[in-house]
């Protein structure tokens, strides 16, 4: 099969909404959306806390956050695997090779990205807006709320960046999900498997969908960044 034939076959699968492919796409979106929601619920408040504190007071926490922003997915996968495997501390929950395990590992990967980027966004706005808010009579809580509200575009960008990172991730979800057909098979793991099997049309089809999602995410990020441009004159 030539590349062109593969693309044409893949396009057919996409256009006809092939049930097997749709099931994989749906699970991928479900897992990554759940993970990014969990990571946002934890990461945004923590990023706000770090961003609003004096840099010197959170130096170590900042360094650790930055380090984990580059957390190798396979290491995250290994950690979650060891925690959830039958001999691990959470083995009794029987979550290994389940969508819940995949959500856990993706949340772990998205958390430092959402925390770190929220922190940077808030810190930048903190410098900009803190004095203005204080000089207009805001108390410390009102200052914090104002700064976080002004950083809303940066925070939304952080969430989108976190989602972009995990939707395209393969190593960690393969380790803790097991790539079980109909159960834990997501787009990235399916692409790996179908390529190995020589089933290129499905691999290319999923690749096209993944690229389309990446394009949508980046378009959204671009729009958010434009919406969040500085109002300073």
């Amino acid at each position, binding site marked *: 099969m030539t590349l062109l034939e593969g693309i044409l076959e893949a396009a057919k699968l996409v256009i006809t909404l092939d049930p097997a492919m749709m099931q994989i796409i749906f699970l991928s979106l479900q897992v990554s959306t759940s993970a990014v929601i969990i990571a946002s619920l934890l990461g945004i408040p923590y990023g706000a806390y770090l961003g609003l504190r004096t840099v010197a007071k959170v130096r170590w926490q900042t360094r650790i956050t930055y380090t984990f922003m580059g957390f190798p997915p396979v290491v995250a996968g290994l950690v979650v695997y060891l925690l959830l495997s039958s001999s691990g501390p959470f083995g009794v929950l029987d979550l290994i090779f389940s969508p819940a395990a995949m959500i856990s590992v993706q949340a772990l990967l998205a958390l430092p990205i959402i925390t770190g980027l929220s922190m940077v966004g808030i810190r930048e706005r903190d410098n*900009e*807006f803190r*004095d*203005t*808010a*204080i*000089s*207009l*009579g*805001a*108390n*410390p809580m*009102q200052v914090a709320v*104002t700064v976080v*509200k*002004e950083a*809303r*575009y940066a925070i939304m960008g952080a969430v989108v960046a976190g989602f972009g990172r995990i939707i395209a991730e393969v190593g960690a979800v393969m380790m803790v999900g097991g790539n079980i057909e109909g159960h834990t098979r997501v787009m990235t793991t399916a692409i790996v498997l179908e390529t190995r099997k020589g089933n290129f049309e499905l691999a290319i089809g999923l690749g096209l969908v993944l690229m389309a999602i990446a394009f949508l995410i980046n378009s959204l990020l671009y729009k958010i960044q434009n919406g*969040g*441009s500085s*109002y*300073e*004159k």
Partner: protein
Amino acid sequence: MKSDQALLQVKSLSHKFNNQEVLNIESLNFKSGKVYGIIGPSGAGKSTLLRILNLLTPPTQGKVFFHNHDIYRLQPQQRIEVQRKMAMVFQKPVLFKHTVKENVAYGLKIRGSDSKEIEDKANEALDRVGLRHLAERSAISLSGGESQRVALARAIVLDIEVLLLDEPTANLDPGNITIIEQLIRRLNQEMRTTVIMVTHNIFQAQRIADDVIFINEGELIEKASAEHIFSAPQDKRTWQFINGEMIY
């Protein structure tokens, strides 16, 4: 309280930045209802003084009194009460990402004013700065002059005793400079608000200030009425600065 007493007093004030003293003022009083112009070369410590008066930068040493209360020794809630009697307009106005009216209403909202009062006062302040027609416009779309007028409206909408202005007309066109200067004067005359304005422009200080304070290298060199300081400065450095002969 808007009497002729000293509203703000600075005593034995010293401020260091990176172990270098940037401000050292033994005594300085600001009386209620006057317009003060603080002039001096770049890096003289003018803006630092303004920030200290506005509780934004605690001084390394010394005291600042507002109505005879040492403001840096007040409890947090009392400090906020003092802060709410002042407002500062910065050289580069930072507007919130909302409409013009929401920007103007900010200080009223955080004070817990009701929506009717917010609406009425915000409209009145926008009328004063001549921007009522832009009330619903996004703050991002404003020009530099309009942004500065919104920042001024955001300050004057509040029931304040002291308006602190840090180079409010720097980089503005002559039309906007005139509008802002007239506003400052009117505000002082109608509301008896004390205005403390840092400016590089000595002619501006001459035009609108009652008293002028000359600061150089962190030190208070001279304080006198505008008329007196420009016609008969007592210190050689003041004379040099006014006549553009000070090299810095």
